[in-house]
C-alpha cells in the first residue's frame, strides 16, 4: 500500500501544476502564515517576571449605606436579654432598624465566623441564633437573596455543619455557599502587607455586606472579632499573615468596609482562642454589639475579655488609617 501511494506521489511530482492550483496553494500557505502572525501579535508575551511595584492607594470595597440620621448612634450594645435573637433585634433597632441598611431587592452577604470545626457551645464560631436573626431581619427588610458564607480554616463541610449555621440559615431560606477553589479570584488590595491575594468572591459580589463575627480571645492579637473576621475573605496560604498579624488585619479592614457589623458576644471564648475546644474556656456574656464602625465595635468588644483598645495593635492602626474610631466612649452609643 505504501509503495503504491508513494509511486502515485512520484508520478504526480512530475506533472506540472495548473495555475489555479498553484494560486490556491499559495493562498492557503499565506492564510496559515497570516493566522500564525495574527496569533503571535494578539497573544504576544513580552516576558519578564510580571512583578509590579507595591504601593499606590490602598483599594477599598465599600458597602456602607447612606449615613443615618444625626441622632442615630454609631454603636449599640444590647445586653438586656438572654435571648440572642432579642439582643440582635434590639441592637439593630437602636441603630435605626435593618431597613436603614438593606433596601428592597438587595443581595445581602452575611459573613459569620465559620472558621472552625466546633459546636456552638465552644463559642469559636458565631452563634447560629445570632446569624439566623440577622438573616431574618435582612429578609424582612426586603432582601432578595441572603448569602451566608465564610472561607473556613478547618474542613469547610464540617465547619458549616457542626457550627449549626448551615442548617439554621438554610431553614430561613438563605443561600449557604461553601468555599471551593473556583470561588476565589485574585484581587489587588494594595495594602501594606496584603497586595495581591485570592479573594472569596461571594462576599464581594453583593449589594450589602453584613459582618457577623464572634468576639473571642486570640493567642496572637489578644482579642478578635469584627476586623479579624475578614480573614475569611482570603484564600491562599493565610498562615503567612501571622508574621504581621496587626497590619494584615488593618489591611483587610481597610479593603473591606461592610454595611453593618453585628458582633456576637452572647458566649465568649476567654482563653485558648481562636479555636477553643473546651467548654470551660467560654462564658456566657449575653451581649450583642451592632455598629457601623468596625473599629469601635472591636474597641468596645475587647473590654469584654479584659483588654484595652490601646494594647491591641490592629485597633490602633485602624484608628490611624481612619477606618473607624478606637475611642468608642467618645462616639454616640447606646445600651439597650
Amino acid at each position, binding site marked *: 500500500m505504501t509503495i503504491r501511494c508513494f509511486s502515485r506521489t512520484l508520478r504526480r511530482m512530475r506533472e506540472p501544476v495548473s495555475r489555479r492550483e498553484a494560486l490556491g496553494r499559495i493562498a492557503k500557505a499565506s492564510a496559515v502564515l497570516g493566522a500564525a502572525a495574527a496569533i503571535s501579535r494578539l497573544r504576544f508575551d513580552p516576558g519578564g517576571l510580571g512583578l509590579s511595584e507595591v504601593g499606590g492607594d490602598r483599594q477599598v470595597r465599600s458597602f456602607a449605606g447612606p449615613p443615618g440620621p444625626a441622632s442615630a448612634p454609631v454603636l449599640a450594645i444590647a445586653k438586656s436579654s438572654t435571648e440572642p435573637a432579642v439582643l440582635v433585634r434590639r441592637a439593630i433597632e437602636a441603630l435605626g432598624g435593618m431597613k436603614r441598611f438593606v433596601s428592597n431587592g438587595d443581595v445581602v452577604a452575611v459573613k459569620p465566623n465559620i472558621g472552625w470545626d466546633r459546636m456552638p457551645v465552644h463559642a469559636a464560631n458565631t452563634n447560629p441564633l445570632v446569624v439566623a436573626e440577622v438573616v431574618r431581619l435582612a429578609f424582612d427588610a426586603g432582601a432578595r437573596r441572603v448569602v451566608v458564607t465564610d472561607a473556613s480554616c478547618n474542613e469547610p463541610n*464540617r465547619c458549616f455543619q457542626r457550627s449549626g449555621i448551615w442548617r439554621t440559615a*438554610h431553614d430561613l431560606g438563605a443561600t449557604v455557599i461553601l468555599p471551593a477553589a473556583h470561588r476565589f479570584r485574585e484581587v489587588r488590595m494594595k495594602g501594606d502587607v496584603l497586595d495581591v491575594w485570592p479573594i472569596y468572591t461571594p462576599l464581594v459580589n453583593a449589594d450589602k455586606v453584613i459582618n457577623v463575627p464572634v468576639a473571642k480571645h486570640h493567642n496572637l492579637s489578644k482579642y478578635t472579632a469584627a476586623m479579624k473576621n475578614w480573614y475569611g475573605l482570603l484564600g491562599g496560604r493565610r498562615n503567612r499573615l501571622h*508574621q504581621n498579624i496587626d497590619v494584615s488585619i488593618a489591611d483587610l479592614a481597610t479593603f473591606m468596609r461592610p454595611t453593618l457589623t453585628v458582633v456576637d458576644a452572647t458566649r465568649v471564648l476567654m482563653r*485558648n482562642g481562636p479555636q477553643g475546644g473546651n467548654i470551660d474556656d467560654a462564658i456566657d456574656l449575653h451581649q450583642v454589639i451592632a455598629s457601623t464602625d468596625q473599629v469601635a465595635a472591636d474597641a468596645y468588644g475587647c473590654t469584654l475579655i479584659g483588654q484595652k483598645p490601646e494594647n491591641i495593635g490592629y485597633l490602633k492602626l485602624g484608628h490611624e488609617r481612619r477606618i473607624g474610631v478606637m475611642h468608642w466612649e467618645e462616639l454616640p452609643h447606646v445600651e439597650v
Partner: protein
Amino acid sequence: MLPDDAPDLPSPIPWLGRTGPVPAIDTLSPAPGTRGGTANHAQGHAGSRSHDARGGPGATASRREPRRLPLLGVHGGPGRVSAAHVPGGAPVAVSGAAVAARGVASKKARPKRKRPGSGIPARKVIRGLVWARRLAQAGFFGLFSFFLFNTAFRGTFSASADSPVRLPWPVEGFLLADPFVAAMTLLSTHAVYRGLAWSLVVLGLTLLFGRVFCGWICPFGTLHHFFAWVFPSRYVRGKARVEANHTQGWQRAKYYLMLAFLASALVGSAIGGLFDPICVAVRAIGLGVLPALQYLGIRGAGVAAETNVRALQTASDGSQDYLARTVWTSSQAYFHQTWLIAFLLIAILFMNRFIPRFWCRALCPLGAFLGVLSRFALFGMEKDHSKCTDCNLCLVHCQGADSPQGGVKHRQDECHMCLNCESACPEDVIKFRFLPNRRGTTSAPDLERRTVLASAAAGAVAIPGLRIAGWPDKGYSEKVIRPPGAVEEREFLERCIRCAECMKVCPNNALHPAFFEAGVEGLWTPILIPRIGYCEYSCVLCGQVCPTGAIQKITEKQKMGIGQKPVAIGTAMYDQGRCLPWAMGTPCIVCEEFCPTSPKAIWAEEVEVPKRDDHYSTQGEQPKMLTVKLKRPHVDPSLCIGCGACEKVCPIVDKPAVYVTSAGETRSKTNVILLENTSYGRT
C-alpha cells in the same frame, strides 16, 4: 474453524466421526437479485457484531477490509486480508454476495435480522436474561460509582450541630460483599470482621449460579467488559476474536495468584488486596481517575473565569458547584505517588485490546476464588456437541474464555455466566439450566499440583522474606503515620487490603497510599502526610469506611479523648533551626492557633530576643540591634495527638519547622516516647 479449502461446506464434525455434506448454512448462499457488494455496504455493516463470525471465510474476509477500501480506491483488490483467506477467485463472489445481502438488509426497513446456521432462536428467557445482565452490570457499576463518589464527607444542611458526622450510605458495600477479602482476613485474623459477613451473599450466589458475580455484578469486570468491546473493535474481531477467546493455559495464573495470596494471609498479611478487583477499582478510580478529572474540571473553570464573560462564568461556577457536591469535593484531591496506580489501571485496561477481559481471565484472584467455588454451583451449562456446526458464534461473544464451543468440555470455573453463548448459538447446542448434566463440563479448575504447591509456598515465604528486611518488627519509619483508630502494625497488615476507602473519604486529603515508606509489603497502605492534609480533630470517617477493621470504628469521644485517653497517631517536633520565632526572631505561632486539643499541646513561651534591624543604612554603619518580643512554641508530648495541623499550617512550606512523626502513637507498645502514666494534663 472451517478449513480454507471447503468454504461452501461446513466442516466434518470430527469427534462424531461424521463426514459428508450437511445442509448449507443459509446466509452463505447468494442472495437473489444482488450484484457484487461495494465497500460502502460493507462499511455500513461493519459495526454489527452479532454477525461477526457468521459462516465462512468469505464473510470474514469482506468484513475485515472495510474502511481501507475507499482509501485504496480498489474494491476486492490487493487486500492482504482477503488474499490470505480466500484462495482462488471463486469465493470472492460468495463474499460479495453475502455483503450485498447484508447491505440490502440494513438499507431496507430492517427486516428481521436473520440468525445464521439453522437459525434456531435463543430461548426467550435467555434473551431476557442477557438484557437483565446488561442492566445489572450497568446498575451495579452505577451503584459502585455512586458509592465511590459518596466516599467523601460533604456535610448537609439538615444535620444539627451536635449530630455526629457519618456517611449516609454504606459506601464500602462492594468490599463487604467480597468473599476473597473475607477469606483473606479470616485466614489472617481468624475472624470475620463485622460487615464482611455480607460476603456470604456473594458466596451463596456463586454456589447457586456460578460466577454470576463476575459477569453480572463486579464493577471492575463491567469496566473490562466495556473496554473489551470498545478497544479491539477494529483489531480483535471475527477469527482473531475467536482465537483470543479460546481457553488458554495462562488463565491458571489467577488460581496460583489466589493461592499465593491466601497463603500470605495465613502467614499474616492481607497483601492480596493489591490484586482484589474491588480494591483495584476503588484505588485506581478513586485515587487516580477522579482526581485527574477534577483537575481537568478546575482547569476548565479557570479558563472560563479568564474569559470575563459573565454567562460563561456563571455556568462554569454552577457546574463546578454541582460536581463538587456530587462527584468530587470542593478542593482538588492529591494523592502521593499515584502515578503507578493509574499507570497499572491503564495498562490492564489496555490489555483488552489484545485479549478481551485479560484481567478477569488471567489475574483476578477474586474470580479464581469464585471459580473454585463454582464447581458446586447448581446452575450451569449443558452442551449437545452433536448439534454443533462449529460456527464459533459462542466464542465470539464469550467473556470468560471458558470453551463454550463444541468439541471441548465447558470450563465452568472460568465461566462468567454472561449467557452470551446460548443467546448467540443458532443451533440447539447450549443450554443453561439448573442441575445440568456434567458430561460436557469440567467444573474444577485445571491446575498442576506442583504449581499449586509452589505458589502457595511462594506466598507463604514471601511475607517473612519481606519482613526480615526490618519492617515492621525492627525498622520504624517516621513517615508511617497510620490513620486514627488503626490497630497495631502487625495486626494492621493482617487486615489492611489497600482498598483506599480511607484515603478517598478523608475530608482533608490527609491519607495517602504509601509507596515504599512502609516497606515493600506496605505498598499502598494508608499513611498520613500532614504536609498535604492534617487529621481533622473530630473526624472518624476513615474507621467508618474501613471494611476489614484495620482502622477500627472509633467514636469522636474516643478519638478526642473525652473522659479517656485520646487516640494519638504521632507526635509533633520542632525544627528550631527553621522555626520563625526560634531562628529568625519573627512572630508566627500559627501552629499554636491551629492546635486543636484543649488544653493546647503547643504552648508558647514569651521571650525578648535581640534582632538586627532590617532597615539598616548603606552608609557603612553597623545596623542597629533591636529587642523583639516573641512567642516561641513548644510541644507537650503528653497532650500531642499527632494530627499534623501544625505541620500543615506552618508557613515554611517546603520542609516545615514543625513536623509529625509516628513516635508516640497510641496503637504501638514500642514506638512510644513517654513512660506510661506520666500524663499530667489528662483526666
